[in-house]
């Protein structure tokens, strides 16, 4: 099925690239959505079967694949809305949809691959397709964003490759099939500690470009800012999860080896610095989209802290990354409507949003509460568990620092959101304001509803998937 999915999806993407017919385009997009749904259901039903030697639908892959499937449907819907308002030329629209489908396909393949080199290839493909999306507006600034993204991702993908080379040095005796994650996990105790350390450092640094952690987070911020908002939603949710998958799978190998403690400390340092950087920028950022992007950095840091603290934190980290994807994508979808009203992303030009779009304002207010982990958000549960695991594993000072930084983040996030919602904007002309159809916010309500549902009363299947994912981490 993976083979059929990959070939069909890349075929659809290729056809869209050369197709200029509107009706055919819609049919192809719908065909892809159906294919994606079918593929997700198939993989869920055939969990842990190996396909094409290099793909295994393990529980983490399936969990994130379902997340991707849920987010991709509103992403396509909002893309139609976005492109409809811009009257773009057919060629740019064709490239946009082809790139988006290629992005979703390579992300799905990266989730499911069981071999680190295959993951690496598909991560490289995500860079290629994401850069086409970022360049969609074709002006100086989007060019700048694209260039930075491509360059930083090219360097980080090289770092991951060096990590893979070191990983193969660490094996007692190398052979071609030996770099699959399951094999590495089996041999974790025999791996050479020196090479494994180097490998982990390089792989971790490389994947931080996708996940959005210090040191490689910078390119992602510009990319999420310059990409059209539906594409930004994908970049800051499902594409982040690709980075997480890469780090998580190599982290599982290291926690079962002799360098467990050391790897946790590396992760804690990166996570703390990320939360700190996010705090500093959140207090001064004036661009709404960039603010959301920095909030993603903060959440990536929290997720990594949960992973490093261990215990209940492992469970919470997986829960957190799924819920964060839903919240952050709905924030980005909603941002598209804000831009249509104010024609600006700056917080200075926006204001009094309740007056112009009541439904959208409610989404914004709810999503703000959810993103800052206030109850009834599911993030409250996961963040609480992460804090508990930090406390239990004697990282008390780290917990205090993180809580202090999070308070500042909530304050600055709230300041900007309340300015957007209630304070009237200076020099804003009301005449030409477009009416926004309330129906466009429906998908955001569904996503936010899912966050409450999965956080407070998680279905048994969901809990089982998460527990299966973390079963290889020693307690």
């Amino acid at each position: 099925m993976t083979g059929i999915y990959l070939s069909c999806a890349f075929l659809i993407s290729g056809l869209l690239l050369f197709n200029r017919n509107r009706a055919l385009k819609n049919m192809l997009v719908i065909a892809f959505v159906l294919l994606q749904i079918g593929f997700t259901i198939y993989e869920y039903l055939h969990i842990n079967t190996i396909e094409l030697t290099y793909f295994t639908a393990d529980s983490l892959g399936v969990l994130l694949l379902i997340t991707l499937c849920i987010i991709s449907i509103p992403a396509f819907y909002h893309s139609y809305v976005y492109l409809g308002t811009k009257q773009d030329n057919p060629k740019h629209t064709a490239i946009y949809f082809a790139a988006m489908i290629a992005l979703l396909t390579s992300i799905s393949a990266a989730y499911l691959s069981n071999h680190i080199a295959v993951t690496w290839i598909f991560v490289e493909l995500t860079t290629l397709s994401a850069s086409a999306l970022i360049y969609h507006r074709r002006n100086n600034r989007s060019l700048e964003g694209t260039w930075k993204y491509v360059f930083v991702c090219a360097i980080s993908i090289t770092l991951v490759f060096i990590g893979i080379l070191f990983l193969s040095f660490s094996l007692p005796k190398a052979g071609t099939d030996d770099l699959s994650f399951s094999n590495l996990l089996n041999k974790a105790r025999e791996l050479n500690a020196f090479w494994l350390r180097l490998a982990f450092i390089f792989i971790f640094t490389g994947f931080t470009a996708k996940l959005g952690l210090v040191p490689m987070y910078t390119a992602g911020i510009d990319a999420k800012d310059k990409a059209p908002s539906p594409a930004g939603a994908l970049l800051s949710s499902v594409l982040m999860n690709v980075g997480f998958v890469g780090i998580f799978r190599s982290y599982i190998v290291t926690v079962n080896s002799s360098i467990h403690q050391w790897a946790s400390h590396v992760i804690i340092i990166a996570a703390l610095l990320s939360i700190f950087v996010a705090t500093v920028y959140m207090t001064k950022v004036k661009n709404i989209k960039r603010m959301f992007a920095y909030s993603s950095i903060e959440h990536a840091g929290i997720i990594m802290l949960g992973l490093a603290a261990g215990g209940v934190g492992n469970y919470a980290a997986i829960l957190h990354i799924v819920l964060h994807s839903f919240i952050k994508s709905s924030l980005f979808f909603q941002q598209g409507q804000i831009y249509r009203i104010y024609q600006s992303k700056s917080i200075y030009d926006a204001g009094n949003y309740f007056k112009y779009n009541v439904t959208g304002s409610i989404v914004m207010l709810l999503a703000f509460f959810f993103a800052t982990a206030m109850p009834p958000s599911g993030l409250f549960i996961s963040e609480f568990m992460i804090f508990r695991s930090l406390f239990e594993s004697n990282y008390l000072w780290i917990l205090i620092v993180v809580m202090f930084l999070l308070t500042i983040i909530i304050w600055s996030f709230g300041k900007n959101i309340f300015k957007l919602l209630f304070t009237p904007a200076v020099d804003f002309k009301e005449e030409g304001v477009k009416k926004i159809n309330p129906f466009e916010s429906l998908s955001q309500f569904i996503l936010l509803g899912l966050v409450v549902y999965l956080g407070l009363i998680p279905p048994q299947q969901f809990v089982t998937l998460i527990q299966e994912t973390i079963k290889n981490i020693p307690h």
Partner: protein
Amino acid sequence: MTNVLLIIFTISLLYLSIAHRLITYIKILAFQGVLLFGIAFIELIEINAINLTFVLFETIAVKAIVIPLFMNYTMKRNRITRDAEPFVPNFVSLIIITLIIIATFVLSNSITDTRISKIYFVVALSTLFAGLYIIVTRSKIITHIIGYLVIENGVFILSVALGNEMPVLVNLGILLDIFASIFLLGVFANRIGDVLKDVDVDQLKNLKD
């Protein structure tokens, strides 16, 4: 023989740190491509013929001829001024690159594994850091690409060290090499040059907070 080639390769890094004109950088890149051809030929002679041909073709044709020619064309097309415009004096650069090489020597002392010879590790890692150093200390976008290509050469040396056991990884590295350099150069030559005149990273500083 490989050791001699690897040492010449390291010396080329020192020359890279004091080079002034862009054309010198491009010539060094081409020269490094020839050196890599020699290293790969001696080291990988035992792997199967098709694979070997592919590797050798990539080093001699792509690294030593196509990429330098294409960069030369890009420079002419975009009328890039010929100076590399480093932020730091060449003397300092020379010292820093020397320090990088010494540091990797020290680090390599902690290797207890006999499977990989230390000289590969030293040369590859110092090439990697030298490439990163060139990226951060030169102001033109094209010098960023040159720095990236230097990093790629380092990665290639590292993958050759393991080439006899895992030829797949060498091929993957080549894939990365071709893909990334075409991609970077393509974006650079087709887009940035058309939109911005006299390409300098200073013009790419609008996105910030």
